[in-house]
């Protein structure tokens, strides 16, 4: 089939990764820069975004939407690819965080910072407790049941006319300036992504990986698998609820659209494009998806076609995702060798 079956691609690690994957042998500043460079680029890039986009308020808003989708996507990626729970409850996290913040702000008069903080911590707890009964479910069953949660919430709110009914809440306090608004969100995103990565690098993260690979062995080791999954659910909930709570304060209102299924579905696309299991990848995926969808706004209903084509293209040609591909290119030389 292949025209040149005698050649194959050889990959050689750049000489910095030594022995165990966690032990690096650093010998110079260059190597340090080599290791930290990509991370710094990512952080500085996001911190610079509001400054660069300051002249264009529309695109400034778009950048913030990138962060919001990024947070929910990281939460999806963490659960799906690290914990092994494919959750379509992204919209549920988002909505619970949003409504909790709205209530705390309108009913108790908490300022945005406190409302968002509390909504994140408490909202994640509510989500984890409500989803916990589904934890024995696996794979597609867990995915479908978690998808029911946001659907159910919209119906309950509509039918029972609670939490403001179809109207939702208005008059929620906004941020004091566009800068606090932008940097609070970006900081939340960076802390979320790198905090989770840190956590996964620790022993607690090791147990999470172990549960995904072989839950029976984990049980035989005296660790409650349900407990580990519950904790992971809470962590993922933190990111989703933070995004929801923040969004509500940005737009100063909340309605049943907070439970719209976009935030259950789009994270899958962002993760596919960016690279699953990396946590940074889904943010990069969002960085591509959100502006793309803005550009395509003029195409009307054709938009979804272009959107799908881009996604299909990624699945076919770069199914590993941008970040996994880029990491490999960055860490390894490739050359053709004769066999």
């Amino acid at each position, binding site marked *: 089939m292949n025209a040149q079956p005698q050649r194959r691609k050889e990959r050689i690690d750049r000489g910095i990764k030594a022995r165990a994957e966690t032990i690096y042998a650093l010998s110079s500043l260059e190597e340090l820069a080599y290791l930290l460079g990509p991370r710094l680029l990512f952080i500085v890039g996001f911190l610079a975004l509001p400054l660069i986009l300051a002249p264009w308020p529309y695109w400034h808003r778009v950048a913030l939407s990138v962060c919001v989708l990024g947070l929910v996507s990281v939460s999806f990626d963490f659960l799906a690819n690290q914990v092994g729970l494919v959750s379509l409850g992204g919209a549920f996290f988002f909505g619970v965080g949003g409504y909790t913040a709205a209530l705390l702000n309108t009913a108790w008069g908490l300022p945005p910072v406190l409302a968002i903080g509390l909504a994140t911590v408490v909202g994640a707890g509510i989500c984890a407790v409500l989803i916990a009964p589904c934890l024995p479910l696996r794979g597609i069953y867990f995915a479908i049941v978690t998808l029911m949660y946001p659907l159910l919430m919209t119906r309950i709110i509509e039918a029972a006319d609670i939490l403001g009914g179809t109207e939702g809440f208005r008059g929620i306090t906004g941020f004091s300036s566009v800068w606090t608004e932008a940097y609070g969100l970006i900081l939340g995103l960076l802390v979320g992504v790198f905090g989770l990565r840190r956590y996964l690098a620790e*022993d607690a993260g090791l147990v999470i990986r172990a549960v995904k690979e072989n839950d029976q062995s984990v049980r035989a080791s005296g660790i409650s698998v349900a407990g580990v999954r519950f904790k992971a659910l809470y962590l993922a909930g933190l990111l989703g609820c933070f995004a929801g709570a923040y969004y509500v304060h940005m737009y100063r209102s909340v309605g049943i659209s907070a439970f719209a299924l976009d935030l259950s579905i789009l994270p899958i696309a962002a993760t596919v494009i960016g690279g699953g299991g990396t946590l940074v990848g889904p943010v990069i995926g969002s960085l591509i998806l959100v502006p793309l969808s803005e550009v395509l706004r003029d195409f009307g209903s054709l938009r979804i076609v272009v959107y799908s084509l881009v996604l299909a293209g990624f699945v076919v040609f770069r199914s590993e995702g941008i970040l996994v591909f880029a990491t490999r290119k960055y860490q390894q030389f490739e050359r053709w060798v004769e066999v």
Partner: protein
Amino acid sequence: MSGTGPILELRNVSMHFGGIRAVENVSFQVEPGEVVGIIGPNGSGKTTLINCITGFLKPTRGKVLFHGRDITGMPAHKVAQLGITRTFQIMRPYHSLPAYKNLVVPLCSPRARRTGGWRGGGRHGDRDTVALDILEELGFERDSRVPYQAAGTLPTGYLKRLELGRCLALNPEVLICDEVFSGLSASEIASLVPLIRRINEQGLTILMIEHRLRELFQVARRVVALSYGEKITEGPPEEVTAHPKVREAYLGSEEEGC
């Protein structure tokens, strides 16, 4: 946790799967510090029996007692917390993790944190070091790449030891081995036998399911024989192998070891 009486006791344990009587009315006791062998032909219910002991299955009938305390139907991780651990007949390593990280997982469990892990080593060093110490004791050459290799790339001999290591890391009181010798060459088994002895001498009570009878009898001084889920006899190796029902169950092939 000391005291007299058996460390582990099974009272009329039965496990039925629908119409299949995988384990039927099995009772026996294990004294502290003993090595007890469990033998029986394929499908005689050995694995099912230890699933019942370790909480992976809830027995249909009967009781499991640990230090006289009823642990029947307790969830598997709680049983392990009490100090009963088991290896899996079909090995269950964490494939993508380096071998030594496989042992860090049990070292993170509450029991290991409380007791310091295998022989309390965790009180002094960090978990990675303790894991490497245990692996070294189990014959992973410390200065080689082997302990750092992804578990999925290790040959069977090492994986069997890794199973043992995962159990030992928890610092258990009772170790249950489900056919650790099967799939190994004679020389590999020969190196495992003294290891099992040494573990036993450190105070662990061991329950060994084995088909390799000759090797089993080098460590186990008492044997329980199962056939079609029922206990047919129990006693010292010579007596058990001489028992007519055991000979019948093994069709006279017990010396070959399946």
